């Protein structure tokens, strides 16, 4: 995946924050870094179709999703974008199977059942199939949320700090099968994280956003070199 996969040029004002974003994604895994209030979540919400930008154009895999000048607008469910946030937002009245199957209404019952089984197996959640969200732990809820987002077979996955609050082992146990599955199907992901180490581990591209603008974008060793040195100095000092 070396060519540009996602091209976004966005202008949007949200309270005191003025977003002026222009980016092109070509790496399979891109980590979005930035301080709180920099515009990371807003950017993901615009890409996912949950917020309409005031001006801009978003093109995913050659397909125009948003073009404010031409008044083009593709609704969230038709974008082929999976979106998982810090809040699993599972449907509380449905069991795990019902949650994962919700986005599969175009498939017949048998195919839908098979896809749900595949997704639950991927995230080691097969034993949770009949449980309700209220009976799941935080980690289990996030596994199910990921299974639900991936089940329809998205062309891009947006992850807005979905592992906040989970311990490191649990995070790895979710991230490993997720990255392998995405790589196998050549589905790129844009991942909001505060963990510098993660960018190096996953050989990701890094995008740094500050005050609504993208300040740097490139391979992790280049973009995060200064930050890495700073962390190493801090470790040496301690």
């Amino acid at each position: 995946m070396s060519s540009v996969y996602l091209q976004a040029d966005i202008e949007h004002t949200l309270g005191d924050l003025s977003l002026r974003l222009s980016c092109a994604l070509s790496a399979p895994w891109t980590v979005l870094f930035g301080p709180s209030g920099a515009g990371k979540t807003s950017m993901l919400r615009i890409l996912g179709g949950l917020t309409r930008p005031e001006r801009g154009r978003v093109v995913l895999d050659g397909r125009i999703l948003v073009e404010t000048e031409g008044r083009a607008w593709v609704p969230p469910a038709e974008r082929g974008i999976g979106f998982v946030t810090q809040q699993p937002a599972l449907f509380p009245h449905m069991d795990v199977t019902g949650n994962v199957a919700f986005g599969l209404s175009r498939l017949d019952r048998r195919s839908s059942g098979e896809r749900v089984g595949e997704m639950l197996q991927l995230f080691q959640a097969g034993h949770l199939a009949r449980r309700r969200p209220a009976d799941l732990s935080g980690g289990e809820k996030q596994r199910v949320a990921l299974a639900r987002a991936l089940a329809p077979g998205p062309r891009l996955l947006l992850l807005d700090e979905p592992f906040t609050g989970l311990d490191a082992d649990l995070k790895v146990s979710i991230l490993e099968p997720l990255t392998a599955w995405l790589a196998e199907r050549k589905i790129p992901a844009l991942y909001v994280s505060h963990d510098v180490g993660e960018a190096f581990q996953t050989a990701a591209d890094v995008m740094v956003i500050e005050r609504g603008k993208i300040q740097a974008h490139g391979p992790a060793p280049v973009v995060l070199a200064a930050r890495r040195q700073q962390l190493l100095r801090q470790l040496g000092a301690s």
Partner: protein
Amino acid sequence: MDRQAIFLTLRLATLTTLILLAVAIPLGYWLAYGRARWRPLVEAAVALPLVLPPTVLGFYLLVLMGPRTAAGRVLAAVFGHPLAFSFAGLLVGSVIFSLPFAVQPMTSGFRSVDREILEAAELLSARPGRILTRVLLPLVRPFLLTAAVLAFTHTVGEFGVVLMIGGGIPGVTKTLSISIYDQVQDFAYAQANHTALLLLSLSFLALLIIYGRRGRAGV
């Protein structure tokens, strides 16, 4: 006991409730999630029957349904007879009078659903009807029950609007509350007591259903 009035009242309350639920679900959804600038205007209009004296509402509806207004003539042409002093007119008046009792619980219900859950549904399904029936309505079921019970009981107990629009014609527009009024006018206190006791029991039972369900649902 005026059995004719009982059946008429139950028929009126049932039809009013069904119509109100059909109106309150989309209207409540729009009031909860709509972004139109004139939404407060609609919200105020829907709530108006809560603060308006029933006789005022009844008077305007009577004038509107009468043959002297264009609206009245159109309605008479559609229904084949003037709406005033008819069951159909009573039904229209009941729907308008009980509108806030159905719409407000539904609006509160839709607003109580986490935005993240609604957005998760929007990301997975492009059909608003499917999101409504599979996600939203099951989540607002206690509010739906409240809306239905309030609409039903409020219709059963209404007096001013019914008297103004219907006039208390036996078998056509004479409901239980009018029946009590007539019984008191005739000094038939024992009969009035029986009818009043029936309404009191019905109202208490309705509230018991609402609070019982709320207790179980933790609303």
